[in-house]
């Protein structure tokens, strides 16, 4: 088993759950530890219940894990909800003045802090949080200096008095724990590595910046808003135009307008906003103007559960806009991949002049991961495709000198001139058109031309399939179990495979990153010798399973699905696999034990 350590911090929105989380994250990443964080929260600004899990360790941490080592409940409600889930070796640090512990399992250390004795709570309302952070770090065997550095950075803008007050409180908590509480059995090590800690939203925004995006626009919608926030905060330094638009219809149309004028253009939304963008995607396809739309999935349908995760938008992406047209759909596998996938998809949409969709979800968008800065490449390959940005000739009359915007070619790709270039004047239309852009939808309706234009556009599909690598099987061959997932479930399935293998059930994983093109033949070939296959996904109906079947006729042996708003934990998958191997069921729906 990998050495990991997980902290859970629970409280009401507005009680300051995020700050201790940020402090722990900074300290861990600066010690060269990896981390993965997930915040279970509600659509409420003050009150309710929010629960942040931060899991750290010297090796890659790919998911929130199954076990909490340290619980910090900031109110009675958080104590009630979470104490019962702690197991042997875990500890719970809490404010003894305001919170009563409940029944804890054997081996769970209850660590009450006499908050009003250790700090002046009339002066500092979040003293209990700072005391708990100090106490926790002492029990983890991390020197006080690490905390002092982070707190000084955090409060330096507020002046020396605030810094020293907070350092004093943290120190009191630290020393109190050293004197009164037992340290954790395995202290957290240190490594020479240094990591950046970022959310998927920040990763996608930075990935766009690296890809040369010059135009970003959005309408705020959870859980995609983080992309807008990063873009808006960094726009000037990055030379990116960022606009907040009146609705998502305006967003996609504005983005396509900017793309048409020649810049890389991106927007992000969630399922509801994406629904409004659907017609615009068809425009991108018909005008052959490339655009990238990010969909950060949340639990639907309709307003659904805005702060909870799901992989329920797949069929919306597959069916977005009417008519047949080439498109790309990529599902990033983790937060690091959220960065990497953006330059990749931009190169493809520029080359094939079609819309590209990045199918992310709340788990990645709002989760956080430690990433090696070397994996954040701001100098990736940029391929703008066949783009005409300067005049190669000047035709008499400055007309269009024989240029055909939608020239019929073998690849289906026609060189794209941007407005402003002399000699390439043309009209791009959402109506069906002939090679030089003249509408053949109204007066000039012509079945031969219509067929030729459909075939021209659809020929790009072959090129797209050749340009996108097929998926590969991860792990050993000839295993008892093959788990199939797509997008964000990569990390949790990977850990489930490790646990299963340790428990004597060998397992490997096929994780799908490109949904379109799917490479169905390759998938079927990989799976043909598998002994028992299970498709794992975060939705009710098995959207990927249905898609794979529709494309390949392939059906797996079983399914694991979860649609309660929370992400999978490794044990959910492990137990479901065992249930299926024992023949009890071919469809497992794990229950989420943590009440958040």
């Amino acid at each position, binding site marked *: 088993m990998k050495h990991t350590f997980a902290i859970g911090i629970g409280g009401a929105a507005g009680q300051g759950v995020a700050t201790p989380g940020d402090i722990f994250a900074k300290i861990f990443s600066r010690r060269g530890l990896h981390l993965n964080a997930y915040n279970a929260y509600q659509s409420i600004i003050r009150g309710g219940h929010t629960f942040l899990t931060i899991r750290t360790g010297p090796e890659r941490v790919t998911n929130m894990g199954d076990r909490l080592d340290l619980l910090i409940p900031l109110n009675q409600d958080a104590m009630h909800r979470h104490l019962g889930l702690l197991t042997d070796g875990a500890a719970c640090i809490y404010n003894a003045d305001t919170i009563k512990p409940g029944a804890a399992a054997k081996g769970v250390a209850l660590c009450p802090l006499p908050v009003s004795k250790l700090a002046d709570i009339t002066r500092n309302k979040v003293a209990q949080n700072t005391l708990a952070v100090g106490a926790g770090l002492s029990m983890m065997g991390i020197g006080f200096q690490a905390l002092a550095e982070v707190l000084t950075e955090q409060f330096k803008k507020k002046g020396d008095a605030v810094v020293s007050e907070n350092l004093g409180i943290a120190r009191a908590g630290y020393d109190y724990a050293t004197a009164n509480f037992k340290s954790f059995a395995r202290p957290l090590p240190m490594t020479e590595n240094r990591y950046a800690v970022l959310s998927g939203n920040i990763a996608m925004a930075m990935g766009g910046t690296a890809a*040369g995006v010059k135009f970003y626009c959005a309408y705020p919608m959870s859980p995609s808003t983080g992309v807008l926030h990063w873009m808006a905060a960094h726009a000037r330094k990055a030379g*990116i135009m960022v606009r907040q*638009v*009146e609705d998502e219809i*305006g967003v996609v149309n504005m983005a396509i307008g900017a793309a048409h004028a020649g810049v890389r253009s991106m927007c992000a939304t969630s399922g509801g906003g994406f629904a409004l963008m659907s017609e615009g995607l068809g425009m991108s396809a018909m005008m052959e103007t490339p655009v990238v739309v990010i969909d950060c999935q949340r639990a639907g349908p309709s307003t659904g559960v805005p702060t909870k995760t799901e992989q329920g938008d797949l069929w919306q992406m597959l069916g977005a806009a009417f008519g047949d047209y080439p498109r790309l759909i990529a599902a990033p596998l983790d937060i690091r991949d959220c960065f990497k996938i953006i330059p990749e998809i931009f190169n493809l949409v520029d080359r094939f002049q079609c819309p590209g969709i990045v199918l992310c979800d709340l788990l990645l968008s709002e989760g956080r991961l430690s990433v090696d800065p070397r994996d954040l490449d701001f100098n990736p390959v940029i391929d703008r495709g066949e783009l005409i940005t300067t005049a190669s000739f000047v035709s008499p009359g400055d007309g269009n000198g024989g240029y055909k915007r939608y020239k019929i070619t073998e690849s289906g790709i026609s060189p794209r001139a941007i*407005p402003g270039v002399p000699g390439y004047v043309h009209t791009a239309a959402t109506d069906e058109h002939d090679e030089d852009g003249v509408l053949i939808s109204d007066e000039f309706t012509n079945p031969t031309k219509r067929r030729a234009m459909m075939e021209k556009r659809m020929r790009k599909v072959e090129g797209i399939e050749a340009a996108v690598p097929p998926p590969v099987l991860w792990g050993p061959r000839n295993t008892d179990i093959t788990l199939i997932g797509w997008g964000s479930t990569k990390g949790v399935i990977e850990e489930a495979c490790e646990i299963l293998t340790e428990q004597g059930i060998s397992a490997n994983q096929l994780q799908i990153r490109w949904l379109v093109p799917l490479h169905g033949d390759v998938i079927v070939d990989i799976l043909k010798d598998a002994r028992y296959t299970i498709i794992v996904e975060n939705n009710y109906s098995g959207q990927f399973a249905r898609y794979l079947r529709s494309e390949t006729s392939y059906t797996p042996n079983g399914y694991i699905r979860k649609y309660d708003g929370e992400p999978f934990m490794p044990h959910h998958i492990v137990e479901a696999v065992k249930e299926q191997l024992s023949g009890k069921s071919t469809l497992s729906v794990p229950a989420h034990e943590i009440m958040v």
Partner: protein
Amino acid sequence: MATTVVVPPKHLAMADLKGKVDPDWCPGCGDFGVLAALQKALIELQIPNHNVVTISGIGCSSNLPGYINTYGMHTLHGRALAVATGVKLANHDLTILVTGGDGDGFGIGGNHFVHTMRRNVDLLYVVMDNQIYGLTTGQTSPTSRIGMKTKSMPLGNIEAPVNPISLALAAGATFVARGFSGEQKHLMELIKKGIQHKGFAFLDVFSPCVTYNHDNTYQWFRPRVKKLEDDSAYDPSDWVGAMEKSLLWGEDIPIGKFFERTDVPTLHAAEPVLNPGPLVQNSARIAPDVARSFVEELM
């Protein structure tokens, strides 16, 4: 990325602006007059046609980009202004003409209409307002008068029409005018002024539908339209006065420039990211030190 080839100055003539195909509008349609006035205005202003983008939505009048030889975009129903905003922000050296109908602009595109005006995007928006849906064969439009009988309201319209001039004034348009397709020269002058205006220029044009609107015909408009320019006392910098004029309807219907102000920065001028020049000319990668600073924030 920038256009580097210098085109020798050439006198732009009507032949240069003729589209590849002739308009498919019904004979007598008001839109012919608008197209001709647009072409004449571009010739008078001598704007090279490769620097003009004509952008439309969907409908009879929205077919216009196909009939004028400039860069063109024939977008989605109601979305021309959103697309045009994106084009302008990506390359603010371009002259943007947005053309469409009353259903396209005030019905399905109403949201973008209001927001594009308040943003003061630098473009000319010409609405060929025929008070009817033509391409869908004659239904009530947002500007159809109360009582007008159409296929969708056979007993007569009972919904109050939009007043495009008042709406534009209220939404913060910095140039608001009304023309009449039957007054070619006057219309062309308004188009020229609208193109030259720095900011959002709105031009509502009475462009009669000879097939489906038998109420608001050339004959109906001709005696009613009164040019604001003929009233020497009229002050188009007075917003309140413009609002009062916009409410006139009936025997006297004002046409001409209702309002113009030049003290509001355009969206592209107000955006510091565009200080170095048009976005499309900025193909530079992020500087390594800037990239490093983005990552260091997260460490």
